[in-house]
């Protein structure tokens, strides 16, 4: 552990209103949910944050329920909760597919959906699912709640529109019409950070999202429009190759990612026809 723990402080609210008051009075405090990302940075000594807000006692943020036709998932729902939820299995099976491929069981038992969104890694495995599902992020502060379309949530690499006094309290997923598809490509099945991850819906027009090919998760509006207009997968592959701008990094190369993204697009189109 390279971070001096004695220099850190932890607030421990017992309820959501209490947590929101604490955030109002000390904006910029870092919310702590499952800890599966935060403690990795703490261990490496690379986390600049020193004040934390433990959310683990706010049980109300762990519900998964249907409101009219919208699946509302409490931000503290763990990946294991998602895997066990009949609602998720029935309505958003690609979210369960993503949860199943995150870490190992130990990570799935602690890591949360809200934490994956808040952490905002470009490789976050649930994020392409939320992008393809046209999800909505519910933010709450002591002043009230607001709903942000997932496509407007991120403003840059690990940057979002969440204010320092706001908490991600839920993710809402509207009814999805059309076959859902998900595939993660990594070094091995478990415990691997994605080289490329795709989630897609065979709706009209199709909705396609990719992770690990840009500073944030991205939707591919040009590729979607190309498929909707011509239905030609060859043409859509060419559009996709121009639409994404992956980089070389320690996990993969830009060329590999572009090729795999094209292949995933073709596989999605073939398997959902």
């Amino acid at each position, binding site marked *: 552990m390279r971070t001096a723990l004695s220099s850190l402080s*932890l607030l*421990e609210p017992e309820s959501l209103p209490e947590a929101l008051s604490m955030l109002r009075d000390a904006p910029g405090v870092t919310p702590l949910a499952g800890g599966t990302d935060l*403690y990795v940075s703490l261990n490496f000594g690379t986390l600049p944050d020193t004040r934390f807000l433990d959310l683990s006692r706010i049980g109300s943020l762990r519900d998964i329920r249907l409101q009219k036709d919208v699946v509302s998932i409490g931000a503290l729902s763990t990946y294991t909760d998602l895997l066990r939820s009949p609602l998720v299995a029935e309505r958003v099976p690609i979210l369960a597919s993503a949860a199943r491929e995150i870490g190992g069981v130990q990570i799935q038992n602690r890591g949360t959906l809200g934490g994956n969104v808040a952490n905002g890694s470009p490789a976050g495995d649930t994020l392409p699912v939320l992008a393809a599902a046209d999800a909505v992020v519910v933010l709450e502060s002591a002043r009230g709640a607001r709903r942000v379309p997932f496509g407007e949530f991120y403003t840059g690499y690990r940057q979002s529109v969440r204010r320092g006094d706001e908490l991600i309290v839920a993710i809402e997923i509207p009814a999805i019409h059309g076959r859902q598809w998900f595939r993660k490509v990594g070094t091995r099945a478990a415990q691997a950070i994605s080289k490329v991850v795709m989630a897609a819906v065979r709706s009209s027009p199709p909705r396609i999202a990719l992770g690990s090919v840009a500073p944030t998760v991205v939707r591919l509006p040009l590729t979607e429009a190309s498929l909707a207009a011509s239905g030609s997968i060859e043409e859509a592959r060419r559009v996709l190759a121009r639409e994404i701008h992956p980089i070389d990094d320690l996990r993969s190369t830009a060329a590999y990612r572009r090729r795999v993204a094209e292949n995933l697009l073709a596989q999605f189109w073939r398997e959902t026809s």
Partner: protein
Amino acid sequence: MKRLLDVLREDFGLTGTKEGCGEGECGACTVLIGGEAVNSCLIPFAQVRDCAVTTIEGLTGAGALQEAFIREGGAQCGICTPGMILAAAALPAGADLDQIRRGLAGNICRCTGYEGIYRSIRGAAQSPSSPE
């Protein structure tokens, strides 16, 4: 903000729980919270207030599992073994090979090649005093 792992090892002297990677990749620090496997290197001690935490020292009823690891060559250098046994103890009764592989995907062993470990877990399930 202290890690559960450090409280177990340093404050309680329960050194059966190992630190491997310190980043949730290797599973050597696996313990059970409420019967579910977790990485104790990623858990703030504050989050286990009022929780039942089980370490390798307190794993009762798992004698068959531990004996099977000895009998079937499931342990070699041993540093991953406590985590492997706890992850195995969290598996559903009668888990098949695919469930065992998935349940232990978060536990890395650099010695055995896993076959001995899977054999041990399957062997324990077939012996009369199977784990809780």
